[in-house]
């Protein structure tokens, strides 16, 4: 069993604390190097890269990448591989700009790539790119990729956006166009995460779901598939014909160490060169920054730790109860003591780097007297056992999270003690990740959850899928409004925010929305994540990217100072 001790991850796969892909378009500075150490290394003039690929890097991962076809279901850690082996047509840099990769330029209305109000798309592709097996890359591959995603028996990860694509036409070996059923701006962002697969290899397979390609992928990326030792590591080797910068490393080893504490121990002894993804547990931060020869970096991240109440719960459905609970959370103690001051307290569902973030929300303060008054006023009377009651309903509920997250468990116990003092009886009901994220979560069978999550739509601050009343899966909605929040004014605002393209108007909408959420508390925000990653001194090129799913996004341009 994986033992994750930073409180962000669960038994086998983490609470999705680190949603990098939701964060495209967050512009604020890529590298927030926290420790003085981290920053200084980046500012020193770096030695030039080697003339030919040399050396290797061992990347420590606390989850095992297992899905190698980038169009099939996978989790964040799988993208560590996809990013090296494959390319997308364009990708986002740390400042949030889309940079062309397989395409020669990112289509826009200005350059004519997108026309007819977003219905017609045209993309020019780079020439001279070859697949790892030597076959030239052409527009046919892009067409095949887009068609495969929608192919009926194919287990594609998601068809969001892709389902709108029709009439794909290969206009030349390096030019492709298609039409959209309706204008859908986020498609640009979706394509920045859609890796292009080789037609000539997948077409040969009788069933692309079981093609040999899925176990030994061939792409256009800086690294070629080397070999995999299941349960242990994946070795990638330099693609010397790569069309972009690099690669400068001869080999990249993705090493799976199932336990975060063990992973950190191996980072310390030097068996792994860097830790990314789930990162270094908070309780090792103070010790880690003192390690000789290691750089420890605080990473910008847009995920929030929240308490997600089920608003159909008899006690939690009442606003006064949620406000009282919120007032009696000792955020400062949680952040400063349990998480060693790493994370940032927050009042909003939007990350603080976002243009839509409203900094003027009322500040939560830890105030048990206020919480008691709120509950007294709302008619919740203390009973003999100390638990408040109202109309025969006791003020009690369970908080669930994934098992094995010991810092989160400490957090739960701290909340439990504070809530006990205001007459709230809380129980802890933690379960393995596979259980939590099953119907328990998707069908809103929990009473409340302590989770790390994000409230946005890929590129956009639009939280409609989380807050709209038609997005409740438990009520046959299609979104992810698992707390089952229904609010007519919010529905109206969400619609307004989607319909206008004027950023100032949208900002006003989302500021208002944040005020309502702060007042109604359909979620109780606790903090915004600041994960910690670390690497060995002398590694040049590592650059955290808030807009990439994993910080191996630019591994092709890494090298060792020697």
């Amino acid at each position, binding site marked *: *069993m994986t*033992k994750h*001790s930073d409180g962000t991850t669960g*038994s086998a796969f983490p609470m999705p604390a680190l949603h990098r892909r939701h964060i495209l378009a967050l512009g604020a500075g890529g590298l927030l190097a926290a420790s003085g150490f981290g920053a200084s290394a980046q500012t020193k003039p770096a030695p030039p890269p080697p003339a030919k690929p040399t050396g290797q890097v061992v990347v420590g991962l606390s989850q095992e990448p297992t899905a190698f076809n980038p169009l099939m279901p996978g989790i964040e850690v799988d993208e560590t591989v996809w990013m090296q082996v494959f390319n997308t047509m364009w990708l986002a840099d740390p400042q949030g700009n889309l940079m062309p990769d397989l395409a020669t330029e990112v289509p826009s209305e200005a350059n004519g790539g997108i026309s007819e109000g977003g219905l017609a798309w045209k993309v020019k592709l780079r020439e001279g790119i070859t697949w790892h097996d030597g076959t030239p890359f052409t527009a046919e591959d892009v067409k095949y990729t887009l068609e495969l995603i929608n192919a009926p028996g194919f287990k594609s990860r998601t068809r969001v956006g892709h389902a709108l694509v029709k009439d794909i036409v290969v206009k030349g070996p390096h030019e492709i166009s298609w039409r959209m059923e309706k204008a859908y701006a986020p498609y640009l962002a979706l394509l920045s995460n859609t890796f292009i697969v080789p037609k000539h290899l997948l077409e040969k397979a009788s069933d692309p779901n079981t093609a040999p390609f899925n176990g030994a992928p061939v792409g256009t990326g800086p690294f070629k598939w080397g070999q995999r030792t299941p349960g242990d590591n994946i070795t990638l080797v330099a693609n010397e014909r790569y069309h972009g910068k690099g690669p400068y490393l001869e080999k990249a080893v993705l090493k799976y160490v199932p336990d*975060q*504490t063990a992973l950190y121990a191996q980072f310390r002894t030097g068996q792994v060169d860097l830790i990314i993804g789930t990162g270094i*547990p908070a*309780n*090792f931060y103070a*010790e880690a920054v003192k390690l000789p020869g290691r750089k420890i970096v605080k990473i910008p991240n847009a995920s929030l730790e929240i308490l997600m109440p089920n608003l159909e719960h008899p006690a939690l459905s009442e606003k006064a109860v949620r406000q009282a609970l919120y007032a009696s959370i000792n955020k400062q*103690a949680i952040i400063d*003591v*349990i998480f060693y001051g790493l994370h940032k307290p927050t009042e909003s569902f939007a990350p603080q780097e976002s243009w839509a973030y409203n900094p003027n929300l009322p500040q939560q303060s830890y105030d048990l007297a206020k919480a008691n008054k709120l509950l007294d006023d709302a008619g919740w009377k203390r009973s003999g056992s100390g638990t408040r009651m109202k109309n025969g309903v006791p003020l009690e509920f369970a908080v669930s999270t994934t*098992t*094995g997250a*010991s810092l989160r*468990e*400490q957090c*739960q*116990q*701290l909340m*439990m*003690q504070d809530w006990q003092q205001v007459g709230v009886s809380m*129980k*802890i*009901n*933690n*379960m*393995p990740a*596979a*259980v939590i994220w099953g119907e328990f979560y998707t069908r809103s069978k929990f009473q409340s959850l302590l989770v790390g999550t994000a409230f946005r739509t890929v590129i956009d601050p639009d939280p409609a899928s989380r807050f709209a009343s038609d997005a409740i899966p438990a009520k046959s909605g299609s979104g992810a409004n698992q707390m089952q929040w229904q609010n007519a004014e919010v529905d109206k605002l969400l619609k307004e925010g989607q319909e206008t393209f004027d950023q100032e108007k949208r900002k006003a909408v989302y500021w208002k929305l944040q005020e309502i959420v702060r007042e109604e508390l359909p979620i109780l925000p606790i903090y915004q994540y600041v994960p910690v990653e670390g690497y060995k001194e002398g590694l040049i090129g590592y650059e955290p990217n808030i807009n990439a799913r994993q910080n191996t996004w630019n591994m092709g341009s890494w090298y060792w100072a020697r």
Partner: protein
Amino acid sequence: MSADLTGVAEIRTAASPFFWNSPGFRRFRQHRLAVFGAVAIVAMTLACIFGPMLLPYSDTFIDIRQRFAPPFSGPHVLGTDPLGRDILARLLMAGRISLAVGFSAMLISMATGICIGMIAGFYEGAVGAALMRFVDAMLCFPSIFLLLAISALISPSVPSIVMLIAMTSWMEVARVVEAQIKSLRTRDYVVAAVAMGASNGRIMFRQLLPNAIAPIVVAATLNVAHAILAESYISFLGYGIQPPTPSWGNMLENAQSYLTSAPWLAILPGAAITLAVTSFNFVGDGLRDALDPRMDLP
């Protein structure tokens, strides 16, 4: 999972009465390790029952300013945990839980194992064969599979953990009992009882069970040891008893990430588990020696 001593126990037909001045008890008293084990168990049980009442600290009271106090350094004798809770108080309360889990799981698994074993041994035909095949099938499962799969089905409370451990440890008991009953039921007094028209239930509980008691007692003792250990493994794998209730297993599990900064957090519950399990194993070993009639021979 390691150390399932019930499998090791090679248990023979025994029918010695278990009285204070019986030769068996004398042998038990001579078995110094067994006596040590028995004394340790009694002492631990008493400490866990009465200890928490004598301590000035509660096992769940969080005092964040006092966190990570090392042992013997202040008012907290054995130090404090990451939330500033008194470790001695937690160890004792955890002992209540862990010992209770051990005993209750033993009772349930013994009851199940004895019933199934007795029925299977007594009704030798199709019923017995079917039951024993079922036992064999259950033994084919890695115990870890049963633990993981079943713990996913239930919510991890103390009673459910007890059930879980019991469900994975009754099979060996059933085998032992079945073998015993099978060999006993051909004895003269059983045959005589059958001839006299005694009911099956009466024969099983009045004639067979008392004569098979020796290996059962030994198996029971070792079963407690197994259950205490099993609880710690379940906690280690993340399916243990929910916080804030302490158990030795979950204390140990939570201590892992502090192994370098606060090693006492792991050492103390680990030592407690080892002491308790060793004691039960000593007693089990002593009982086996004491109840084995062959030892009466020169």
